[in-house]
């Protein structure tokens, strides 16, 4: 009886260890979902990738010059702002980056996602990011 117990315990233990250590990562660290207005207005949620943007701009460009507060959900950006050259629109104007008429490139998230910071390799503490 004892012997049987050991027989299933070892692979189960290994499976748990492997699942915990090698579970494939989900979305990229610091990806941001923005869905305060998107779906309500018939668009996919926006996925903003920090990794893509920080290769091209230092933090202080968006979180300084462009006025983005460092808290997901605290920036109320409308398409009117963007087409007026504010916030995302400072670059997404067809000159530095694609223009705001390329809806699907930003509004690219799965329906039903909630606004927030997503991504793997994340501290699973009591965060409010």
């Amino acid at each position: 009886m004892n012997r049987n117990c050991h027989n299933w315990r070892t692979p189960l233990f290994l499976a748990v260890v492997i699942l915990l250590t090698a579970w494939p990562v989900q979305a990229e660290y610091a990806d941001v979902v923005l869905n305060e207005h998107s779906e309500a207005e018939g668009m996919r949620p926006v996925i903003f990738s920090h990794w893509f943007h920080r290769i091209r701009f230092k933090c202080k460009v968006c979180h300084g010059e462009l006025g983005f507060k460092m808290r997901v959900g605290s920036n109320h950006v409308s398409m009117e702002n963007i087409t007026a050259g504010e916030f995302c629109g400072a670059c997404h104007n067809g000159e530095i980056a694609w223009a705001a008429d390329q809806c699907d490139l930003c509004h690219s998230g799965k329906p039903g996602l909630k606004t927030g910071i997503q991504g793997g390799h994340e501290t699973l503490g009591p965060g409010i990011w």
Partner: protein
Amino acid sequence: MTIVLLAVSVTAVASNWKKLSNDGLHDPGNPALKLLQNPEESLRVLPPDTTGNMVDWIRALQNGDIEPRSTIKGEVEEEILDLDVLIMGTGAGSVPFIRFPHKAHTEWLACSNCHEHLFKSEVGATEFTMMQILNGEYCGVCHGAVSFPLTECNRCHSVSPDEAARIQKAKVMEEKPGE
């Protein structure tokens, strides 16, 4: 059984970055998805790290592997400050004290991103706790969200109590020579 599990494990580790079409966030049904760059394409050539984006962003910038712009409107001057701050009261027993490096921070950020609303410029004037940081306040505004996560204790808590005491003593001697 074990071999199969190990094989699965190795496959999972082989790529640090998921494709956008399979990352749980992007809609695979979006026809424009194929126009977006997958993380692996640009991140795999940057200096590696063991957490976050699996990229050592500080080194990537210092090596010149990436050249992010500092300004769009030409309004922001570079303000690199090479000044480490030993933050007393942040260590005890086996927990080392925090050494805060301004250089790595000011290479990415403007002074006004942290001062004076998050941290007062005067050393010791801002009180904060680890719980507040874990809750996304103070250092936790970035660390745990976009900068390296809070699981990396020793990257911040890096000065042993003995060394911290030596540094403090030296500072007192410097300020009040002869004592």
